[in-house]
């Protein structure tokens, strides 16, 4: 196996989860647990695909996927923030709605091919002997996802808005007492998370596969949730987690293709098993960095 190709394919395979997990991390930092990542991803996958196919522009597809993910997540936001519904149950509901919705929309698009998202050869860097092909000749979304990691990190660490978002997630009652609009901050975070998940889904249907099949995200949204825990709610940790996971996926797929003696089913289940093992190791150490108000409803009267 060519190591250049290996690293390049790990980056491609990690990007959907990276986008989704990064968005979910921001949501959780604001104190909201949205378990609907899988539903938003799959909706983004189908909407992105549909828009890209009908318009011929993959970038428009990604934009549409981001919007549809955000819209869907705002339904979750409305229920949890204004109607104060249980976040776990509502997130599950969002996933079920997303799976149904995507299957319904996608039934007309099965078997079609998406327009290809061109490679973005970065001048100079792309011409480097080995590293060029490995790191600097990907499609634009790979770089967008990496830029987002840096942006989220800087936003949470250095900006005032980021500080407010973290305050809301740590102690919503105090943040409210200080005059911050808890619900609005959370809705903004939820919408951002939805947009990221939508783009992540679109990356699966437009670049990685690239076609539409029902249920194609196959638990990637749930793995993104696990990666947020793995990352201890830090942007860099999300990057590492997503790339590790991408590595596992690529290696198991390559082993399947190479036809080793290991049963195919064992290889296919390995990403999920490894996720469980990683979760156990992280939780055994004690989950550090979980926002204190995570998953709790906020109501100004209480």
């Amino acid at each position: 196996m060519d190591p250049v190709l290996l690293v390049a394919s790990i980056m491609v395979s990690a990007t959907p989860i990276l986008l989704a997990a990064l968005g979910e991390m921001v949501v959780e930092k604001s104190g909201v647990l949205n378990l609907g990542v899988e539903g938003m991803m799959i909706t983004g996958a189908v909407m992105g695909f549909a828009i890209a196919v009908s318009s011929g522009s993959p970038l428009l597809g990604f934009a549409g996927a981001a919007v549809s993910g955000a819209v869907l997540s705002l339904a979750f936001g409305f229920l949890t923030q204004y109607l104060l519904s249980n976040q776990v149950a509502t997130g599950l509901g969002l996933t079920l709605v997303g799976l149904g919705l995507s299957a319904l929309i996608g039934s007309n698009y099965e078997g079609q091919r998406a327009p290809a998202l061109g490679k973005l050869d970065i001048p100079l860097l792309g011409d480097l002997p080995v590293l060029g092909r490995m790191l600097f000749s990907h499609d634009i979304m790979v770089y967008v996802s990496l830029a987002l990691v840096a942006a989220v990190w800087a936003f949470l660490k250095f900006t005032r808005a980021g500080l407010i978002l973290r305050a809301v997630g740590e102690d919503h009652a105090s943040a409210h007492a200080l005059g911050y609009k808890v619900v609005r901050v959370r809705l903004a975070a939820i919408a951002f998370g939805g947009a990221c998940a939508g783009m992540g889904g679109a990356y699966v249907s437009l670049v990685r596969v690239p076609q539409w099949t029902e249920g194609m995200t196959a638990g990637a949204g749930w793995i993104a949730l696990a990666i947020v825990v793995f990352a201890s709610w830090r942007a860099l940790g999300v990057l590492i987690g997503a790339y590790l996971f991408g590595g596992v996926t690529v290696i198991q797929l390559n082993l399947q293709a190479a036809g080793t003696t290991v049963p195919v089913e064992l290889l296919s289940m390995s990403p999920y098993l490894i996720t469980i093992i990683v979760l156990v190791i992280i939780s055994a150490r004690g989950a550090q960095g979980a926002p204190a108000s995570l998953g709790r409803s906020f109501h100004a009267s209480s």
Partner: protein
Amino acid sequence: MMRLEKRPQPSGYWTALTPILAVVLTMLVGGVMFWALGKPPVEAIRTIFWDPLFHPQFAAYSRPQLLVKAGPLILIAIGLSIGFRAGIWNIGAEGQYIMGAVTGAAVGLAFYPSESVLLFPLMVIAGALGGWAWAMIPAVLKTRFGTNEILVSLMLVYVAENILASASANWLRSPEGMGFPGSRNFKQWPAVFNDELIANTGMHWGVVTAFIAVIAAYVMMARHIAGFNVRLTGEAPRAARFSGVSPARIVFLCLGLSGVLAGMAGLFEVTGPAGQISIDFGSGYGFTAIIVAFLGRLNPFGILAAGLLMALTYIGGELAQLMLGLPGASIQLFQGMLLFFLLATDVFTNYRVRLVRREVA
């Protein structure tokens, strides 16, 4: 402007009313959705909710299906509801259902072609144990390491699906199947075939077990100390710990019970309506049961009603697919919407809506 005021106690009136409100809202929005798909909305709703029971031509076939589909849904949802009451989120019932079916079927097939009357009960026990063991993984990890049971139980669904694929293609494949995937057909093996107990009712052993589970769950939750401890853990975890309730034991109890029930549901399904272990055996009952549990207000008798209603949408959905060419996925969306509207209208159960004039600060 409107303001929400927390009720000291959830309103009993609204607890009963919200599921009905949610169903009505789903029908309305669903009607709009069907209209947007270019299908007659009223006819579509009628085909889903009315025709399976009363259509002169199809009802004779679809009425028994009601119990066939409701049985596993109720059985799984009862187990889940107990955990949800305690704040333990087992969302991997689908995996426990699959593992119950695989273990139960494997034990049965090991004795092929025995005609012993003891074999079927043995398979039921094996199925229950299979589901139980699969649910014990998140339980042990949660109590031992504090690992989140939501993610672990869900990841295990994908693992179970791969085990199912392997069982169907390799180690449980029928030797007489000419190399095709899929186990021996239990329908052709009278000793273990989970047939209808009364012809044309759809009533098989799984449905009977579901009814028993409803009553047992009611007794446990309303009359037994275990049920009280479960509710206490969910509503006031600190109070529960002070009164000597071990959180770990509640986790084992809740996950264990739901694993057992989901595993049994899988076994009854594979020996009855499904007939064999095959790749597409997992039919999503484990996920739909989550909706059933919430729609039934986590109350055993509510779950009984909700399970029947959800079974109706399954059958009605198939009928609408056949008669109106409605996409099969629209039913999935329909069921998801139902849960969403239920959670939305639930605000009235816990809060009172007051109209107040905006105060001047």
